[in-house]
């Protein structure tokens, strides 16, 4: 272990609430110690869930690990907390660039340049982007390799709902799948089995809320030993389930579910 890492680790051990985890996590990340960086960032995030820099650090680590969907969520969360966060604007620009959405990439880079006009990284990225546009015409082809694109497409479709491959499923009132899919931690498809039970859960939730005089139910969050789930009703005739592992706190899952619910509602209106 290097002296820097040792010193920062010792400082963090002395004061676990310290923000030194940001420097330690970044240092480990730069040295390619991704798992250690991941642990440091996640622990820091649990202690400082409203700190934009903590989400940004975690997003960079996730991006290094090619977990682009979560990196996108983390940078998105960073911007919700700090709308002018340059790191998050650059990060999202990078992810958009990777899937070939050059307009969004450019919009994020221009926003970053407004906040940090002297940032050379932003200037270089904008120059590269313009070069890409110049070389491939008005509708450039996506520039990413197949694997990550697939992940990001899921993330983007998550916002629009069609085609999500894991962690999200939209059902009709009878428990039939309208979009999305679920996999268990072993990677096996479990959509149909879960769907079969969810209609019953929804009916029971509605009955419980009504009989207790609590009005309509808005959402049902559950914490399991191996993950977290959130169930919502985009419309009276549909159900949306979002599943994440335990690294995503229940509160954040509810935020993700709110966004997915809106997307599902729009999607359902378009289908009508």
């Amino acid at each position, binding site marked *: 272990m290097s002296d820097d890492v040792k010193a920062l680790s010792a400082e963090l051990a002395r004061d676990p609430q310290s923000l030194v985890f940001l420097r330690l996590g970044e240092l480990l990340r730069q040295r390619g110690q991704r798992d250690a960086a991941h642990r440091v960032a996640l622990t820091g995030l649990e202690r400082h869930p409203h700190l934009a820099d903590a989400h940004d650090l975690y997003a960079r680590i996730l991006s290094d690990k090619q977990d682009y969907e979560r990196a996108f969520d983390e940078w998105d969360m960073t911007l919700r907390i700090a709308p002018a966060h340059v790191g998050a604007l650059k990060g999202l620009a990078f992810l958009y660039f990777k899937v070939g959405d050059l307009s969004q990439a450019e919009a994020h880079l221009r926003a970053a340049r407004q906040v940090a006009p002297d940032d050379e990284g932003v200037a270089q990225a904008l120059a590269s982007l313009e070069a890409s546009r110049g070389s491939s015409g008005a509708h450039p082809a996506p520039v990413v390799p197949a694997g990550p694109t697939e992940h990001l497409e899921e993330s983007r479709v998550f916002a629009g709902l069609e085609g999500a491959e894991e962690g999200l499923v939209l059902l009709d009132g009878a428990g039939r799948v309208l979009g999305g899919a*679920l996999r*268990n*931690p*072993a990677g*096996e498809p*479990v959509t149909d*089995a*879960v769907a*079969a*039970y*969810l209609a*019953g*859960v929804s009916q*029971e*939730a509605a*009955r*419980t*809320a009504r*009989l*207790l*005089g*609590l*009005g*309509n*139910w*808005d*959402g*049902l*969050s*559950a*914490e*399991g*030993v*191996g*993950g*977290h*789930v959130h169930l919502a009703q985009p419309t009276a005739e549909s159900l949306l389930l979002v*599943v994440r592992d335990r690294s995503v706190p*229940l509160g954040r899952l509810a935020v993700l579910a709110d966004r997915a619910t809106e997307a599902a509602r729009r999607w359902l209106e378009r289908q009508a």
Partner: protein
Amino acid sequence: MTGTGFERALDSVTRVRGVRGAMLVAGDDGLVVAEQLMEGIKGTAVAALAASLSSRLKRAMDAGGVGPGIFWHLQCEQGALLVVPAASGVLVVAVTDPDVNVGLVRLELKRAAETVG
């Protein structure tokens, strides 16, 4: 555990501001084990519904590979129902106002569940 022990376990939950009532429910048959509810809340109905919802949710979570539930929270327009299953299968249940501190209720429910065993 004695009736007094159950009451003490529920006391810590009902002391949280915004909690309208708490109860212990037998998870397998939905019968009331102990209750401290505000007037107007039907204990037997809450118990039966909480047990039924818990059982259905458990099946869905098992099917999804998320494992056994350790806490769930039904959010409604005018309040919420929060549940923590104890190791014995007894459900520790709270009925709350909509603006309750969910984190605090969750903590007290978990403590009560540990006490109940």
